[in-house]
Structure formats: structure tokens, C-alpha cells
């Protein structure tokens, strides 16, 4: 397969792991860790690494700070016990002739056993209390009135995003406003599933939460920096689980307003591509897809009203280019074998017309 079909184009900005860390020690730890993980990353010039170590939203920050604290404790335990083990391995090797006599047999020691029971118990108490605090802080955070509400519905193998108060329906690429301290606007996601279990995971913005049918869940994000943040489905959901990618565009208020306004419009209706529109409306496309302003009201597949406003198709499996669109419609198995969209058995000309039509749907 030619490489260009696999290139992801689209706009994104470089992300800065900008966050205010509570202490210089954790800053040092994080720098060390980042260097460790960043080296191979930087070597590849990747700009969309969904790293837990680069939080950009309050839940992700809270988790990150907690993780540094836990790492400090577990690291210390490792240093002590590992060090003892290393010492023992070196110091108490059997050497030559003195292996003739058995060493003194020591059967146990109550004091020692007590000591190394009590200390772990204390460590557990500390870790537990710290963890509990963060759990409650994230999970039970009250939803402010200014929050943006988005309903996420997981499908095999794509994401449906609905903004109930804005009357917007889109797919796979989420646009949310940036949330600064001065103008906080967190996004609250309601998580539902239309079929099997999925999980919404954008590491830089929050921990993951599952989408389980008949079991609604909630989570929130408040990204501090505009940019593109990537993630993907994190609960095995079937054959193309690997290709259920997420792109979250954090927009400035102006950008978000413009985006929302566009999404609220009816579908573009250009007479030049009427042939393609005709194909769409007369073929089975309408059974699965919606294009607002046309007779197409299908909900099994993604809403295509503004499909050209997205950088990718097939939940990130391919870049949104006319060639890829053509290949996808001809046979979805090109990018996603096992995808629930069937090969439409259309002629080349029909597909060309369709692609021309879809290409106008900005």
C-alpha cells in the first residue's frame, strides 16, 4: 500500500507539557522521566504522542502529580530491598573451601518480622489516604454551570459525539473549548455505548472511562492549552478495536464558536455535485448515514453532514483525502477489514461522483 494513503494530514499545534508543578523535586523527577521517555520520542520527531507524562488538563495533572508521589515511595522501596538483595548476592556467595561447613542456621526472628510488617502497613496507610483524596477530587467534582456537555456514544468502530445543547452531531473528532483559570469551561462527557464495551482514552486530558451498554458513565476534561490531543479506544471491542482513534481539538473560544456555528448549519448543497448527491440518496448510504438537510437520516454510521471538517475518515484509519475516500467507499476493507460498513459494489464513476459530492460537505 502506498505510504501516502497512511499519512495523517491536518492541522495540529505542537503541545507543550505546560503545567505548574507543586514542588521542585517533582519537577526534577518529571524532567528525568520525560528525558527517559522523550529520547526515543524526540528521535522520531513525533508530535502526537499521547503521553501520560504530558498532562494538559486538571484530571490528568492530578493523576500525574499523584503518580510522582507514588513513584517516589515505590522507588525508595525498590532501592532498599533491591539493594539488600544485591548486597546479599555478592557478600554471601559460597567461596571455595569454606563451602565445607554449613553456615549458622537461623530460623526466624519475631522482632524483624514485626518490623517489616509494621513499616509496609504504614506505607499502605499513607498511599491509601493520598489515593482516596484524588479519587474523590476527580470522580466527585461537581459539574459547574458553564460546563460544555457532550454525549459520547461508542460504536464498533467509531465515536459519535453529540452536543445536545448546541444541536450538533459529529463523529470521531471532538472539538472542545480551552478552559483557563480566568475563564473556566470544562467539558463533561456522558459516555454511552450502542453495542459492546469501549473506553475513551486521551491520556493527556484525563484517565480513561469505559463506555458500557446499559451503564452510562461520566467524565470531565478541562484542557489548559489549545492544540490537538490524540487517543484511542482502550477496551477491546472487536476486530477493528485498534483503529478506533480519537482526535480532540482544543480550540480557543473564537475557534470553537466558529466551529460550532459551522456544524449547526445544514449540509452544503452545490448543484455542481448533484450527481453525487443523487447517488448518495438512491443507494443504501442513507440507511446508515445522516446528512442534515437531505433525506438521509441513518444512524448506524457516522453523521456526514460536515465530513470535510474532519482530518481523517474511518475513525482515524486514513487521512481524509479524495483518494482515500474513494478507496474506502469502494472497499472499507482497504483500511479496516472487519469494519461494519460493507463494500458498496458501486461503479468507479458512481464513486467518483460520490466523492465529489462528499468533498463539498464542509
Amino acid at each position, binding site marked *: 500500500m502506498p505510504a501516502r494513503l*497512511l499519512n495523517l494530514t491536518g492541522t495540529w499545534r505542537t503541545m507543550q507539557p505546560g503545567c505548574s508543578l507543586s514542588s521542585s523535586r517533582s519537577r526534577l523527577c518529571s524532567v528525568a522521566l520525560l528525558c527517559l*521517555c522523550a529520547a526515543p520520542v524526540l528521535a*522520531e520527531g*513525533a508530535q502526537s*504522542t*499521547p*503521553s*501520560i*507524562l504530558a498532562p494538559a488538563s486538571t484530571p490528568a495533572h492530578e*493523576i500525574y502529580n*499523584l*503518580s510522582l508521589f*507514588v*513513584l517516589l515511595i*515505590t522507588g525508595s*522501596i525498590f532501592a532498599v530491598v*533491591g539493594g*539488600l*538483595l544485591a548486597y*546479599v548476592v555478592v557478600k*554471601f*556467595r*559460597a567461596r571455595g573451601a569454606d563451602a565445607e561447613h*554449613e*553456615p*549458622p*542456621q*537461623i*530460623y*526466624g526472628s519475631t522482632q524483624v518480622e514485626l518490623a*517489616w510488617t509494621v513499616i*509496609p*502497613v504504614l506505607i*499502605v496507610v499513607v498511599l*491509601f489516604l493520598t*489515593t482516596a483524596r*484524588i*479519587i474523590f477530587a476527580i*470522580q*466527585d467534582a461537581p459539574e459547574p454551570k458553564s460546563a460544555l456537555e457532550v454525549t459520547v456514544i461508542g460504536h464498533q468502530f467509531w465515536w459519535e459525539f453529540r452536543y445536545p445543547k448546541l444541536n450538533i452531531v459529529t463523529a470521531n473528532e471532538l472539538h472542545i473549548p480551552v478552559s483557563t483559570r480566568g475563564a473556566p469551561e470544562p467539558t463533561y462527557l456522558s*459516555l454511552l455505548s450502542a453495542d*459492546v*464495551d469501549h473506553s475513551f482514552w486521551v491520556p493527556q486530558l484525563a*484517565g*480513561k472511562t469505559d463506555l*458500557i*451498554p*446499559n*451503564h452510562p*458513565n461520566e467524565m470531565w476534561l478541562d484542557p489548559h492549552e489549545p492544540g490537538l490531543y490524540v487517543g*484511542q479506544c*482502550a*477496551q*477491546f471491542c*472487536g*476486530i*477493528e*478495536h*485498534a483503529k478506533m482513534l480519537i482526535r480532540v481539538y482544543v480550540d480557543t473560544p473564537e475557534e470553537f464558536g466558529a466551529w460550532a456555528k459551522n456544524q449547526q448549519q445544514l449540509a452544503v448543497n452545490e448543484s455542481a455535485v448533484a450527481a453525487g448527491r443523487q447517488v448518495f440518496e438512491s443507494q443504501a448510504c442513507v440507511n446508515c448515514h445522516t446528512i442534515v438537510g437531505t433525506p438521509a437520516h441513518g444512524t448506524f454510521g457516522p453523521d456526514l453532514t460536515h465530513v470535510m471538517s474532519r482530518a481523517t475518515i474511518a475513525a482515524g484509519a486514513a487521512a481524509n483525502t479524495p483518494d482515500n475516500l474513494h478507496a474506502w467507499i469502494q472497499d472499507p476493507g482497504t483500511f479496516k477489514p*472487519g469494519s461494519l460498513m460493507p463494500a458498496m459494489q458501486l461503479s468507479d464513476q458512481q464513486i467518483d461522483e460520490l466523492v465529489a459530492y462528499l468533498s463539498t460537505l464542509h
Partner: protein
Amino acid sequence: MADQTLPIPGSLTATPTRGAAFLEWLHGWVVTVDHKRLGVLYVVYAIFFLLVAGAEALAMRIQLAIPNNHFLSPEFYNEMFTMHGTTMVFLVGMTFIFGFANYLVPLMIGARDMAFPRLNAFSFWMTAFGGLLLYFSFIGGFGLYGMGSAPDVSWWAYAPLTAKAFSPGHNTDYWALSLIVMGFGTLGAAINTLATAFSMRCRGMTLFRMPLFVWLMVVTSGLTLITITPLTAAQVMLIIDRYLGGHFFDTQAGGSAVVWMHFFWIFGHPEVYVLILPAFGIASEVIPVFSRKAIFGYPVMVAASVAIAFISTSVWAHHMFTVGMTSVGNTFFVLSTMMVGIPTGIKIFNWVATMWGGKIRFATPMLFCTAFVFQFLIAGLTGIMLSVAAWNWQLHNSYFVIAHFHYTLTGSFVFCMFAAIYYWYPKVTGRMLSETLGKWHFWLFFIGFHLTFDTMHFVGILGMPRSIYAYEADRGWNTLNMIISAGGMIQGIAVLIFAWNLIDSYLHGKGAGNDPWDAWTLEWSTPSPPPAYNYAADPVVRSRRPLWDIKHPNDPDWKYEQ
């Protein structure tokens, strides 16, 4: 038949024709009820499937070595990771532990056989058949994507993916049925082990004089009784859903996908303790012998093992932190999971204390056990990290989790199984395994293991989820995945060296004698291999280390043991 022992290679038999002799030999193995033979059958079965599941892992690693690879189709990859996990847990893990239990428990307690020899044979053959049924799935039908019908729903098989609507083929059915069949075998083996340890000990061997391996198998068997059975129940429910139109996990009819998760993990978490406790038992036998000291804190080791078993039944939902339980619910499971780390840590400290002040001989079994202690320490610490629910919300279902449980399963369980094989192979076969090949095996496996699983922690932290057949090229995971795959190849080579060692030493290995390691438990007082009846006269013991008492008549254990 009753007086046949393992044939000493190279010696003549009295039978007339080669064909008849072979059939007689085969027949002996098929109808045997001798615990030693059944133990060998279990372990050979386990080693075979270790190679098979290892190959499945390598296939996956070739697919993941570069981004968006096309070595395996998505369907086949999903079958690979499902089968790899299922095989390793049930056909390698469970068979190893009950294989060693079968062979060693009667010998260690001075008994002639297990309590129920025919149940023993039944258990083995049920397990074996279940495994064959599982693998038959590859060829038992074309499958929906032309890749056969091997299970492809992951080893935890979450509902409703396993419902008829979303898995219309027979993949899930093979998974459920073969595991139910194996479950009967496991239950039989657990019951047998408990009955043997409680009812067949030789005179003087009180419960607190049993070798720690026997204790750990008792605890494991008790835990198995309440661990395997929830899985059987859940799988019966799944089959009712799939074939009788039931609604247990049918979310359209009010059923709950989360209920499956609870039932599965009520099995799934204690199951990993079922696997690791015998490994602890093996370490508790090998480390003292090679450190030339008694185990430090025997009563505490027993108490810690029992505590682990009990607490492990209360931690299961730490696999479900992202499912949307209440904050109180999440917090409870954080606490219980951290608590299970305490007795586990105590055991690590006791092993180190055993080595402290000793005169350590680093023969191959000890190399594997020392690496086990090191790796289990790390595994326990990453487990603590995962128990921090909020951090778990990031790490769950990522490669960090895969790294953690491979540290516990490969880095701890498999290392102990290798140690056990190097340690007891001389007893079973009468031949020593080659130390040179053993050291090659150890070092290559150690290096490959760390290359693979240390790196996995990092790629998980960089956001790579599990169960994906391919990944995007621009996520920064490429180099790390290549390293992981390279480490896998090295481990594969190491295991092949090990397999060669097993075969070559059987034919040409040095004679072992009764007690090549200068050890202290009863099995080392028998010839190698032991006769079918184990002991000509029932042993009588006065301490935990009967052979130490014999070898040190001026300084016997029973003078000092509490």
C-alpha cells in the same frame, strides 16, 4: 505395570519386539494412575504449550515490531492474543502447578501416592482434552474471516462482545466449553491435593512440619476451589445466553455487562494467586537449599500465604476501576489491593533473610530463583502503582499493565518453573541437566525478558493501549516496540536451548544419585527416579528437614524449631 519405573535410557528391556515394547510403554503411560507419571505428563504438557503460546507471542511481536504492519490480519492477531493468554494461564500455568504438586506432594509428605489416584488420572485427562478442544478450534471450521474459529474475544471475554449478536461464529463457544472441561480437571486436582496433604502425611509430619511447597499447594488448592468455580458458573451462564436465549449479559433485556466483569474477575484475580503461590513454594524450597540455611520465618511464611489467599478474594474489582464504580467502591478496592501487598512483601523479605548469612551456590535453579526475587519485587511495586485507582485510570488497558503481569507471570512464575525443573529433573529422570546449557538458558532469557518487559512499561506510559493489532506511526512508539520484539526473539532462543537441554540431558546427562543438591526434604531420600511405591517403609519425621537431622545428628533441627 505397578512396578514399572521410568525407563533408564540406554538399558535393555526384556520385551521381544520393538513395536510391542513401544505399545506396552505407551499403554503404561495412558492408563497410569501413578502420581509421578501423571506429574510428568502434566509438566510435559505444560512445556509443550509453553512453546506453542510462546510462538503465538512471537507472531504478535513480529506484527507489532513496526507500525501498521501486515504480517497478521486483524482477526488472526486477535485470535493470537486471546489464545496466548488463555493457553498460558490454563494450559501452561495450571498444568505446571498441578504437575509439580502431583509429583512432589506425596513424596514430600512420605506417602505412596495421592489420596485418589484414579481421580488424579481423570483430572489430567480432562485437562488435556480441554486443551486439545481449545486448539481444535483453529481447524474446526473456516471461521467468519477465514482464519479458523479460535477464540478471538480476548482471554477475559467481556460481554456483550461474546453475545451471539457480536460473536456469531463458534470462537467464543470453543473458549467457554474447553475451559469448562479443563475446570473439572482442575477441581479434581485441587480436591485430590487437599485430601492428600491432610490425610496421607507420614508419622510425625504435623501440618507445621510439611515442606513449604506442600503448604503452598494446600493453600493454592483451597483457593482454587473458590476460584475456578465462579469461572465455570459464568461460562455456563454465557452458554445459556448464547444457546438457550438467556439474558444474563444481554444489555438489551436489562442484563448487565458489568456483572460479567465482576464474575470474571472474581475468578480472574484469585487465579493469578493460584498461579503464583506454588511458585512461592518452589522458591521456598530452592532458596534455602542453595543458601545452605533453613527458610527464615517458616510460620510467618505459612501465615502470609494464607493471608494472601484470603485477601486476594477481595481485590477483584481493581481490574474495573474504569468501569464507573462509585468513588467509595473504587476506594475500597484500592485498600484491599494494597493490603494484599503486605504479606507478599513479607515473603520477599523472608527470602532475602534466608539468603543473608548463607553460603550461596549459584547453580541454575538458584540463578532463576534469585532473578525471581528481584523481578517479583518490581512486579509487586508496579502492582502497587496500578492499585492507585486514579493512576490506574491512565494505566489500565495499556502496555504498562501487560508489563506488570508479565513481570508476575513470566518474570516470577516462569522463572520459578524453570528453577523447579532444573532442581527436580535429576530426581525425576536420574540425570542432571547440563549446567552450561542451563546458564546459557538463564542469561539469554533474563536479558530477553528485561529487554522486552522493562521497555513495555514505557510504551504504556506513552499511551499505547493493549489488544491492538497495529499502531499509528506518529505516536512515538516505534523504536520501543522494535526493542520489545527483539527481546521476545531472544527469549525464544533461550527457551529453545532449554528444550534442547531437557532432551539431550535425558539421553546423555550425568547420573544424579539420590541427592545431588545436598537437600533436606523427604523426596531426596529416595532413588532417582523413585520406585513406583516411593518408600519401602513409611518414613517417620521429627522436624521440617528430616534429611538435615540425618546428616547432622549432633545438630538436628528438632532441637531448635519453634
